[in-house]
């Protein structure tokens, strides 16, 4: 069975904190993705990675960075969390041009 896991389902952080969200997939997929989902705005791509140590900006990369040191693991980093980064964060993975498989999501609240 396809499996994408995310490190936390719910997270509460304070403004200015550095936040790490981790995603792990067990399908040997080349591609991994980070999205955020907000009511009325749909899913927006933050960053994606098509190989180890390779990354590309998505539609809304400002305020975020990513790290992919191993094929199965893709981390999203909020360098200095702000309240406008309160959101649902979704990780996904896929083969190139294949179907994306999503994790359960992390609901992040920044106070």
């Amino acid at each position: 069975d396809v499996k994408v896991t995310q490190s936390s389902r719910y997270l509460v952080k304070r403004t200015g904190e550095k936040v790490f969200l981790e995603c792990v997939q067990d399908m040997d997929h080349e591609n991994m993705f980070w999205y955020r989902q907000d009511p009325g705005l749909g899913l927006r791509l933050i960053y994606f990675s098509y190989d180890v140590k390779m990354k590309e900006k998505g539609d809304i990369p400002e305020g975020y960075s990513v790290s992919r040191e191993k094929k199965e693991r893709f981390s999203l980093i909020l360098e200095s969390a702000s309240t406008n980064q309160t959101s649902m964060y979704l990780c996904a993975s896929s083969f190139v041009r294949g179907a994306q498989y999503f994790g359960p999501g992390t609901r992040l609240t920044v106070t």
Partner: protein
Amino acid sequence: AQSVTQPDIHITVSEGASLELRCNYSYGATPYLFWYVQSPGQGLQLLLKYFSGDTLVQGIKGFEAEFKRSQSSFNLRKPSVHWSDAAEYFCAVVLISSNTGKLIFGQGTTLQVKP
């Protein structure tokens, strides 16, 4: 403009009734096509996908979708809806020309099921 359109933001059907959710795309070449479902507070689950071949695609949970090239559509159907089908449904495409596999999503359709 190139896009994926789900014309219905919100649909309500009675339990046991049939369902059709619409999806249209506007790209020059036929993309790869997907339907996802999202229950409240959960991630997205892949229902079905179309890459090529038979234009009627069977998915999980009793869903099917039909690709119609002439209409640039990929509508999702289910003959008899269950209360547990209440969720948000997303149509998505990957352009064949894409070397990144980036998904382009429609706006989503929220399905409400009446008892």
